[in-house]
């Protein structure tokens, strides 16, 4: 069995919060793998989220960069959640993977 080291749950960055014609880039919608209802999503409220990406220029010894955020509340009835990041996630990340950490933990 290959050893995994994953301590985060995978998720997708779906879109910004929006109505039909206006969007609010400050709030991102995240779909968490394996979560299909607001009851299930409740476990993840407050958990930190990281959007990890690579860049060509090395900063402080690394080419990997992170935008941190946290899951704030549920969105809709199918388990999607809203998240706010330190700086808004750009629209080119729609469909990109996002890491939902298991901390701050309450278990």
């Amino acid at each position, binding site marked *: 069995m290959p050893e995994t080291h994953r301590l985060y749950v995978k998720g997708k960055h779906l879109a910004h919060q929006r109505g039909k014609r206006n969007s609010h880039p400050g709030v991102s919608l995240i779909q968490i793998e394996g979560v299909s209802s607001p009851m299930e999503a409740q476990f993840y409220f407050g958990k930190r989220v990281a959007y990890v990406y690579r860049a060509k220029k090395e900063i402080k010894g690394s080419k990997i960069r992170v935008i941190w955020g946290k899951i704030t509340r549920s969105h809709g009835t199918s388990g999607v959640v809203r998240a706010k990041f330190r700086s808004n996630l750009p629209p080119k990340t729609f469909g990109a993977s996002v890491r939902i950490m298991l*901390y701050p933990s309450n278990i």
Partner: protein
Amino acid sequence: MSAVTKEIGGASNGGKRVIPANKASKWYPAEDIPALKKARKTAVRHAVLRESLKPGAVLIILAGRFRGKRVVLLKALEDGTLLVTGPFKVNGVPLRRVNAAYVIATSTVVDIASVDVSSFSAAYFAHEKKSKKEGEAEFFGDEEKKQKKVISEARIADQKAVDTALLAEIKKVPALKAYLASSFSLKKGDKPHLMKF
């Protein structure tokens, strides 16, 4: 206005004199100095940790250098952190503080009645103050400082003392040692919101 009778020396001074015990002050400030409001805060109370964090519980560390490691909780320190040990020989985690928010408590508990942790407190783990003198010497000597950090003999001795007692208890439970040696990770299909830890 309590008065005190004092004896006085000297032949023609009357022998005794009545003096007020609390003298009126010679100086009064021009404006009244406002009195500070009385603080209603009482002494800082020790924060209550969640129920699952009992001494002896096996914890999963979620972040930091030892992320994924399963570790034994020894006690809660006064500064709100948890004192934890691998044990060192089992998974390389020394006596260390860990923040309760970065930990998942499992339902596995080890009996630590025989382990003596009374000597450990937040002060034991406080950083040693670096001397701020020798500005330039330090700057040039930086490369030398990157040598291996020396762990004090006291720490090693304390680690050994706690771990030998703890390992004796761990050996009594089948597979517990291997469990502590293994790391936690999420596998495909795992749903932490449904998992029972």
